[in-house]
């Protein structure tokens, strides 16, 4: 028992010294990706625009059900758990953000966004978070735990990062038959001599194993009565919160929430999309509550590859569009407002800027928003020109 306590104190002490020389301070960026092209028009509802209601006879959220925010926009009723954060100015959004890619392809747009690229320029190589971590060695002081993806696959955004861990639960980290650390030692020799990607990832995995072995003993119940929904997304956020509390040098955590490709029976205030919205909002609210004592230490960004068209299709869903509402949560967010323009397009004709008739323009380059998030989290020292080469970054005002 004493030994365990000593080890975790030691881990704590090392981590905080390592964090000391990093960028600014000890901060974690939580990157939530809504996979499938989220229809943010039903998340942040343009409740006062008649065109929205006219083009969505079945899918529009009725004004009586919208949570009013005192302006052009209101929240979907299932966003209720985040209403307080919005009103306290800790949760905000930018409307009509997007990539300059008109293919309408999930995979192209996700890749482009995760790589931090433009459809025009040359790819900068790797993912935007991978580039950030590689360009700022101080941010990687946490080794295998400086960057984390919840799930089973490494996301493209972390491609090129010097070290990344992928896991579903911290408690999973164990190596079978490792009596007296002999298997770990043998694996270290096997993977140590590999100069390939495989070798590098093998060494990181071993490093992760060693670091987490200490943490596994620590208490893991959420604090302040935080109630996470029973879902892998919520579980992921809970594990991220544990790592933030343990101060193991976590800088970037990626958590995905899928199920947003609502071509078919999307629903409005109830239904399939409402269920996803509820899960998103409840999970984030639980995360906030769990980390009540660490509010200065994290920022959550919520993005998706593209928004959806304003009009509904014949199967009561929406097809791929362009612009979407980017959202962020945390003490450093200038929340309580929805920034950006409202470039709704209702013409029935095909427009070059949207992949089909009738969408929302992508007015703000997503890279301007991502760049602002990085600066907001890690200070003015972030080398944005190298992370988003060639981008004409503009101030957005969200962080």
């Amino acid at each position: 028992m004493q030994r365990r306590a000593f080890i975790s104190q030691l881990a704590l002490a090392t981590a905080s010294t390592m964090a000391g020389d990093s960028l600014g301070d000890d901060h974690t960026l939580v990157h939530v990706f809504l996979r499938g092209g989220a229809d943010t028009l039903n998340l942040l509802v343009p409740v006062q625009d008649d065109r929205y209601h006219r083009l969505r006879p079945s899918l529009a959220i009725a004004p009586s059900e919208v949570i009013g925010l005192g302006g052009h926009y209101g929240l979907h009723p299932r966003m209720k758990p985040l209403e307080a954060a919005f009103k306290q100015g800790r949760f905000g959004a930018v409307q009509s953000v997007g990539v300059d890619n008109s293919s309408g392809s999930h995979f192209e747009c996700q890749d482009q966004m995760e790589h931090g690229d433009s459809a025009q320029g040359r790819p900068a190589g790797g993912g935007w978070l991978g580039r950030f971590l590689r360009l700022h060695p101080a941010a990687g002081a946490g080794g295998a735990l400086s960057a984390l993806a919840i799930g089973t696959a490494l996301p493209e955004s972390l491609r090129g990062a010097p070290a990344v861990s992928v896991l579903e639960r911290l408690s999973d980290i164990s190596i079978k038959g490792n009596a007296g650390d002999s298997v770990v030692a043998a694996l270290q020799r096997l993977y140590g001599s590999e100069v390939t990607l495989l070798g590098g990832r093998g060494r990181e995995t071993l490093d992760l194993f060693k670091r987490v072995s200490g943490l596994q003993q620590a208490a893991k119940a959420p604090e302040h009565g935080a109630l996470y929904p029973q879902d892998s997304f919520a579980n992921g956020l809970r594990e991220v919160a544990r790592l933030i509390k343990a101060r193991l040098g976590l800088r970037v955590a990626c958590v995905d929430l899928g199920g947003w490709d609502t071509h078919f029976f999307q629903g409005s205030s109830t239904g399939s999309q409402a269920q996803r919205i509820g899960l998103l909002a409840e999970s984030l609210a639980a995360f906030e509550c769990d980390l009540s004592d660490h509010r200065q230490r994290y920022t959550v960004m919520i993005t998706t590859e593209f928004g959806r068209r304003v009009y509904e299709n014949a199967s009561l869903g929406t097809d791929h569009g362009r612009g979407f509402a980017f959202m962020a949560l945390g003490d450093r967010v200038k929340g309580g407002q929805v920034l950006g323009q409202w470039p709704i397009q209702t013409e029935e004709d095909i427009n070059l800027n949207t992949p089909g008739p009738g969408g929302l323009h992508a007015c703000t380059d997503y890279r301007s928003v991502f760049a602002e998030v990085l600066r907001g989290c890690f200070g003015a020292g972030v080398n944005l020109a190298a992370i988003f080469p060639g981008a004409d970054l503009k101030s957005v005002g969200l962080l």
Partner: protein
Amino acid sequence: MRCRRRVALGNLMLALSSCERMVTGINRAWLGEGPPPGPVAPPDGREIDPDFHLLSRASFGPWPGDLERLKSMGAAAWIEQQLHPESIADHACDLRAERFESVHFSAGNAYEFRKPVLRAELTRHTLLRAMYSRRQLLEVMVEFWTDHLNIDLEKGDCIYLKPSDDREVIRRHALGNFRELIRASATSPAMLVYLDGQANRVRAGSNDKPNENYARELMELHTMGVHGGYSQRDVYEAARCLSGWSFDRNRFWALNQGKSFFRADWHDDGAKTVLGHDIPAGGGAQDLDRLVDIVCSHPSTARFIAGKLCRRLVSAKPAEELVQRVAAEFSRTQGDIKAMLRLIFASREFAASPAALLKRPFKFMVSAMRALLADTQANSALLEPLQRMGQGLFQHPTPDGYPDEELPWMGTLLWRWNFAMALAANAQSGVRVDVLGLRRELGFAPAQWFAQLVGRRPAAQEAAVFEGGDEIRAVGLILASPAFQRC
């Protein structure tokens, strides 16, 4: 009547499942599933044995004795035999995999089963086929097309519809003609539900907009590739061609509820232009065939499919020249899958590519179990590690299928190591192996395990790690080593 048949079959299944050990006994004693007669000679070259290389790509890794069999036949004859799976008796595998009732049912009748049963049976069937079938190249291509025409069981009613899609689209055409494969997929109930084709209706006189989901993925993922040269207008026009094709198992008047159908009054029957080809008005159900012809015969499709096959079977960045040759073969034969495979396996680029690929988790697991002549019925305990490694079967959520790139699989090495150590020690639940007994039967020395499993002698650095220690632990470490993660 159907019900009674189910009960009868159910009883039979019950009897069978209590006889799982008997199946193993029969297979090993009479159906050639046991160790080969006579000692085997693990390769002892510095480089991976070329026949071992072929087995690593055109199969889920060598079963003990496969290498010797291939050497005595000659590689060309072996490939030709594999290209004609109907010529290969597969009784031992059938005995293990055919007993799952739901995989034989039509799309409509599969609704009789509960979801967990359908999920378990389809998954177990797939794993057992990959493990035990002697029609290995067929299984390799089944995996390829399952990714290419991905369907996630958890979307809508797909879980009821995928078993028949697996049988009648993927398995039927895996080594056949590409155009027929796409044609079958386009009206497969599972695909109609997965990519919302069933909801693509444009009712006459209405203001209905077509649902573009399937039309887009047909061009982007199934045929031409995202930069294949189609416009957003082409996607829209293709969706119009496809409107009216649907699936609805609740059509009480229909004779066969398990089939897709075409409703003329949901079809946009005006004139269309797709990729520069005019499709005149009034084509009705034939519009779909015209569209499939247009996209399948587009030069981008030949290139896209050739590139994808080369990335799966040769290397992550295949030589442009090889891709061009395979694409030309696709065009020359109008999409003959066998012809493309023949060309790939005979190419010098293939011969020069040993160990160039990373095994994805499914292949890693299956190749380890095959190499150790494992006995399994593929129950849920065995499927759990696959889930953790990130390749739960039929669960890829998006229509692009599980990726071939290395990076996405690099985050779950820990679970590979744990599976390797547990398997070798016969401690992985759901599967039985006997490392020491197998080695004695195969008649090689303990130090030859590396060569037997990897296809070459270990380098000095590698040998030093396995030397001296416990044999079972050494086999576990070999399976966990970087060398065994490649193929």
